[in-house]
């Protein structure tokens, strides 16, 4: 009870009158549509293409880009934070294997629902110490680990992630990006090498036809055309070279 009777009522009335004149936040949706940010994609979900196959290529770019690490392929959260299972685990595993195989021709183990083989960590710890546990040296670490163990076991990647603090998704992305790194023992290599060779052949023929379509004729002799072709070949060499070797 205030000193002046009715002061509270007056205050309340003043408040409602102020709100009366305030602009309203309501957006009359069907008529008025809000401008959403250009990269807004709405709800998180996996899309299917027109043939009914999953569009997800398991490239892990989404997991790397997610600032709070709520996206995690396979539902394994490396830091014990939020993660999203996209669908039931068993179907997810199948989808993931299928799409990964479709992409690379290598079988990819599902870390969440298949036990991975243990490794002896001493050699890996030595390598990590040599590179100062620094995730900036990730490519060197991975190359040394492959040189030590013959391939990149899942357990090694896990340990690297744990010791360097890098996300497992990023390490896996790096390991699966470079063709000279392999996630499987070399026994499965011939198949992958054959696939890689076939792809490289297709690329060469495509580039040749592309050049022909661009610059007309088989040998135009135009200076910039050859310059581009010359610049093109060293760029493709590091990626394709070791795989062919």
């Amino acid at each position, binding site marked *: 009870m205030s000193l002046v009777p009715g002061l509270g009522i007056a205050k309340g009335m003043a408040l*409602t009158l102020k709100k*009366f004149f305030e602009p*309203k936040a309501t957006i*009359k949706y069907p008529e008025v549509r809000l401008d959403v940010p250009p990269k807004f994609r709405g709800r998180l979900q996996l899309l299917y293409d027109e043939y009914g196959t999953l569009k997800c290529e398991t490239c892990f770019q989404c997991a790397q880009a997610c600032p709070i690490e709520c996206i995690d392929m396979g539902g394994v959260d490396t830091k014990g934070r939020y993660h999203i299972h996209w669908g039931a685990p068993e179907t997810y595993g199948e989808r993931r294997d299928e799409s990964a195989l479709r992409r690379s021709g290598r079988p990819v183990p599902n870390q969440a629902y298949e036990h991975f083989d243990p490794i002896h960590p001493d050699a890996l710890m030595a390598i990590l110490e040599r590179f100062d546990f620094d995730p900036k040296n990730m490519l060197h670490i991975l190359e040394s680990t492959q040189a030590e163990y013959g391939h990149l076991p899942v357990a090694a990647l896990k340990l690297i992630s744990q010791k360097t603090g890098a996300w497992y998704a990023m390490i896996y992305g790096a390991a699966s990006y470079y063709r000279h790194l392999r996630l499987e023992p070399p026994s499965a290599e011939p198949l992958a090498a054959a696939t890689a060779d076939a792809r490289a052949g297709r690329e060469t023929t495509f580039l040749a036809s592309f050049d022909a379509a661009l610059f007309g004729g088989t040998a135009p002799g135009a200076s910039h055309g050859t310059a581009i072709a010359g610049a093109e070949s060293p760029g493709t060499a590091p990626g394709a070279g070791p795989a062919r070797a």
Partner: protein
Amino acid sequence: MTAMARSFSRLTLGGKILFTLGPILFLLTIGLVLLIAIAGKPIVDFLATNIWLVRFVVAATAVLLMSVPTAFLIIYMEMKIIALMNLRIGPDRVGPFGSLMSVIHGLKVLAKEDFSPTGADRLVFTLAPVAVFMSTIMALLVLPFAPGLFGADMNIGLLYLFAVSGLSVVGLLMAGWSSFNKYSLLGGLRSAAQVISYEIPLILSVVGLLLLAGTMSLNQIVVKQGGWFWNWYVFQQPLGALIFFIAATAEANRTPFDLTEADSEIVAGFATEYSGMRFGFFFFAEYVNVFVVSGLIVTLFFGGWNAPFPWPWPITLNIDPGSLGLGLLFAILIVPPLLILALAAPFYLGRSSMPWWQALIIGFVLFNLLVIVAITGWAFVSWNWVAGLMVFLGKSYLFVFTFVWMRGTLPRVRIDQLMGFAWKWLLPASLLNLFVTALALVVVNK
């Protein structure tokens, strides 16, 4: 017969209405013409000698017709203003800014089943909303809207007004009792207790004003408040005005005293068993009552149809269109299209994206608005009843707004707080007001 029924059933809705109403109107016109031809003279003589009868019938019709848009407007105001205060938009689909929403409400109520419970006293059940509605309408009859614009200028106008608005208690009790439902009966009794309790301070708070005014005629009370705004009785009777306002809030069953049908707490009090248009009448009466109470506050304490300053009421504008002769005809033909074009031109020239027909439509609408404003302004300065009506309605709707504003702000009081406030605070305060006013009058007159 069957052929006629079949062909009638094949008509569209408009055709059915036309074929039903057309002959009836035709027969009525014939009958009226015959009546005037045969018995016109005696009827006119009778009406001329009993002009009060004509006035009464016209006033009652006008008030009944006026109550419908008034209720619609207040319902719309309630929905819209409370929505805006709640940071919502409120009705905005039907009509401009949703203003026809209350018409849709009325149609909805009309289309609902008119249900009466088993065991109800059918006659009393039907008459109860009529009694409530009638008391409100009868109160509207003596309200002075403008100089010369009122149903009846009774010398006991205020007494009559309190008497007929007190009749609504009978309607509430009838509704509660005839519903054959003990909760309705309790609700009715509770409403009656509230309304009767608040009627006492309501009337006592006006007695001081009556001492000052020396008359009970509402028209005279308004006339006595003419001139500058400090002649209004609110400045001589501030306590009385406050008590009257609070008691009138309770009398009109408005928040924070709307316990008779607290929508969010009890079902509907006395109106629990009502549906359809019978409930609609209660609803209507409530909202017309808000207007009556607002108009009464304005009439008694805020100068009625008097403007806040001495208004030079009738101004004669020396406009004689007839003096133009044939030129008037040409002006009527030429001026509107020219004005429309002139009003449309800035939109067409200023916005390159606007097609010419849209600019023309805008010009046409603007022209009509201009004409309406001009005619209203001309009527405002020429006839003092138009100006008075506008001032009165403006003030009244200001108070309607205040009631709605209060509903948007204040929580509902408890029943014991409600009764305790009436008997412990309002009644002594109104008695004090009466005593002080009487004492001051005696001292001043001595």
